[in-house]
């Protein structure tokens, strides 16, 4: 892998799996915001385009001791991206303050190396031309371009909202980044000034979005030193920006491939905290 880029601002999520009921509002909000085309038959999941999927988790116990949890899975926005390192045309990279992994679909040649590399199955190949029922194209947002078949797509943390939030500051004459006495950039976007569509829609407040480097942000407070926090496949070293939190140990153990006698680990035990 290439050298990891560190940014002063690192947008990230804390997804509370004790709050998620698996309703799917986040999935629909994501599609509507990012102009994903609907599909009449969405039963074959290998042909369905979804940037965000809610998975069902089970504690594996028989009735009546069974428990269920739901896990929304956007792109994990890895700091060590398995995807970007294999892209032959630099259609995906993490090269902007904020740490969001880009997806430049006009540059994508559809080779799908990135899909094979992504351990989170967060990337989707566009098997079909995006077709909306007649007239429904009028409900497309002007913020995200439509993608043709033959390219790979993924969640961008609603990057256009990041750009809009920066524009709001610029029109007010406020610098987006200021250099503080610690020498680091600090982002002037207020905590609720940039929120992803999925986080915005969730009435349960299960998805918390913000700057993982900013101690004033709720997302930072939720994941820093929280023994209930975990990241998916932590030990791969991808250093993702999506944290999950749950008070249930069986949920946390499903985040990685633990052997039966292995102790459930915490993010800080596995990777040095660099942000």
């Amino acid at each position, binding site marked *: 892998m290439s050298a990891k880029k560190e940014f002063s601002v690192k947008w990230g999520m*804390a997804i509370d799996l*004790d*709050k998620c*009921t*698996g*309703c*799917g*509002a986040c*999935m*629909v909000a994501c599609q*509507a915001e990012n102009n994903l085309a*609907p599909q*009449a038959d*969405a*039963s074959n*999941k290998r042909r*369905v385009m979804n940037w965000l999927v*809610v*998975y*069902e988790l089970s504690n594996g116990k*028989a*009735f009546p001791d*069974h428990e*269920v*949890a739901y896990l929304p899975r956007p792109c994990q926005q890895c700091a060590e991206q398995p995807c970007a390192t294999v892209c032959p*045309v630099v259609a995906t990279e993490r090269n902007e303050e904020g740490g969001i992994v880009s997806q430049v*679909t*006009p*540059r994508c*040649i559809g080779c799908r190396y990135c899909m094979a590399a992504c351990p989170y199955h967060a990337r989707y190949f566009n098997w079909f*031309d*995006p*077709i*909306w*029922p007649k*007239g*429904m*194209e*009028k*409900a*497309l*947002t*002007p913020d*995200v371009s*439509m993608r*043709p078949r*033959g*390219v790979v797509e993924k969640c961008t943390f609603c990057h256009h909202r990041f750009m809009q939030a920066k524009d709001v500051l610029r029109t007010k004459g406020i610098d987006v980044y200021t250099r503080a006495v610690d020498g680091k950039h600090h982002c002037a976007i207020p905590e609720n000034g940039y929120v992803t569509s999925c986080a915005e829609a969730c*009435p*349960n*407040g299960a998805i*918390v979005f913000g700057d993982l480097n900013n101690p004033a942000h709720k997302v930072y*407070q*939720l994941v820093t*030193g*929280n*023994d*209930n926090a975990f990241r998916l496949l932590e030990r791969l070293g991808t250093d993702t920006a999506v944290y999950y*939190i749950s*008070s249930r140990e069986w949920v946390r153990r499903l985040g990685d491939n633990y052997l039966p006698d292995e102790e459930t680990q915490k993010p800080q035990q596995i990777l040095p905290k660099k942000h």
Partner: protein
Amino acid sequence: MKFVAGASAGIMATPVPWKLLDDVSIWTQNWSWIPRNQYGESTYAHAVSKMDPSGVPMRIRLVDGRPVRVLPVEDHPLGGGLTALSVAEVQMLYSPGRVKRPLLRAADGGFTELDWPAAAKILQEKLTEAGKNTAFISGDESSSTNEVLSAFAKGIGSDQVFFMPSEGQCASVAARLMGLEAQFGYDLEKSDYVLAIGANLLESWGTVVRNRRIFKESHPHPVRSAAKGIKEAAPMAVLAYAGSVQNNTAAVARPWLPIYPGSEGLLALGIANMLIAKGRVVDAADFDAFKALAAKFTPEEVARLTGVDPKKLEAVVEGLLKAKAPLVVVGSEFGQGAGAAPLMAAFAVNALLGNINRPGGLVLMPPAQTAMPKAEARSGMYAKDLASWIGTAKPALLVLHEANPVYALPDPESVAAALKNIPFKVSFSTFMDESAALCDLVLPIGMGIERTDDMESPYGCGGSVYCVTPAVVEAEQDVRSTANALLFVARKMGMDLGFETLMDLIKAKAQQYGKAKFDVLASGKALVDDRTVGPRGLKLRADILGKALQPAAKAKDALCLAPYAKLSMGTAKTGIPPYNNKTLRAGDLDGTAMTVLMNAATASKKGMANGDRLLLDSGRRRIAAKLRVYEGVMNDTVAVCLGFGHTALDEFSQNKGANVMELMTAAAEPGTGLSVWTGTAVAVSKA
């Protein structure tokens, strides 16, 4: 040789091949059929979802006047997020299933298009001809359109105005039978212990977004740090759930008490008995009779009848007793067919807990008001049972308003047969649903954001609330509103209903509610009225409860049927919205076959395994399905999701599984006048 080597090195070093590749990539993506972004100024408007029955306040983003997104509203008593259904509302404006202009059944069985004046003339003729022999069915409980329907019906001498079955109807009938002139409200905001029995609070019961916002506020994120000595904060309110399926509410409720479907009222009586044993009483004239009835429901008997774990139940009752503001909410896991008796039993439990009209308790709200002189009160419409009427009555004319009884009532095939016997049927509908497809005259009405409408105290709210939703966008289809069309026809027929348009009626209603200005309400403000009415003259009606709350009859080898509802699957009126198809999980559908759920012990008992093709047989109808072994289902129970099996609407809803309503038959609930269908049993066999 030198040239070849030089050329190779040159090709490797030059950016030309990469640039060409980049260009090829870009230009092979420019196709005329791929939509381009249409830019424009963003504006925002407030509305309330009329598509989502849970009453969701919304902020609509428009770009150059085109609605493109539904956004949540935080500052609203019913707001705080979106449901999987309401978030897709603007896309539904362009659903292929929409009715675009008035349609009249032709001699060849197909539809011919006509304009509104011609359609109104036919409607007027048919209404004049049928007169008092006209029946109306409304699928929207909270709109003032119902006043127009009932006043119009009265004007032509008919009192046959029905609602589609709902939880609100069960609660209204329960209140009336207990001698209460009130609408049940639930102060979830201030409750510190909520026990939901069958009521899928966080997905399909009542004011869903509000319920979920309250859940968010009362349940802090689990932060724990051994190093810093931080312990996890306990939730400010307990949410316990009793039901047959580990549904969206059960997924986060602590604890989940599995019970048999249809046994919600029996469990409530068992809890009442335990509370009485602890010395709790209710100030009601017939309390002794109730006490005697409840005494039969000992913990052992309740465990036998409902399948509940007695220890878990005891812990829940202890929790209720210790709580400052406990609240018990009873409902149906699929939002209908529970009858009034379980709600009456729940009221008794709440009364025993001493929480009637107390903060965090069960609130008796003044009944919804009427502004139209001849209109029938909502409770009057609720009192009429559609499921039993539709099989026997023979009106000359049936008028549907946003109602799809052919899909949503038990035994849809019989309902369709009953409708076919009605000489003329009219459907005011946004979508070409199963019922509209059977009608003789289909009249397109706008979606909620295309028309001015209102919402008055949707079932489940915590106090009276009144909202207005303005027309945010003009419809592309040739639509009218049901109320305005009927008011127009009324004038043509020489009837004066007191108002010329629905807008006038809404303005009058707003005046009733604290003299509010229409424009203020249309900008997203909700009127809240916290007044309550006293439980004077309360009767617990053990006479009715004793007869109505009986364990469902079931053949020895049959399984209990547990339908469950998900808002992402849409409603009977909308079908599955195009953007919601993808929320179906892998395994929910196998091609066109739907999945039903059983736990491993039940499947094993029946000699079945995961993936088996099954037939579910009610004795009258049967449906095919595929088995998914899921441990979150009660023993001897098969769980089936509502919302599949549409035969009308559009490609996003059709050819997906079967309609579970096919398996259900409505039975009379003794003493209440309602029908029930939550206690259905089915024979399950391998296909």
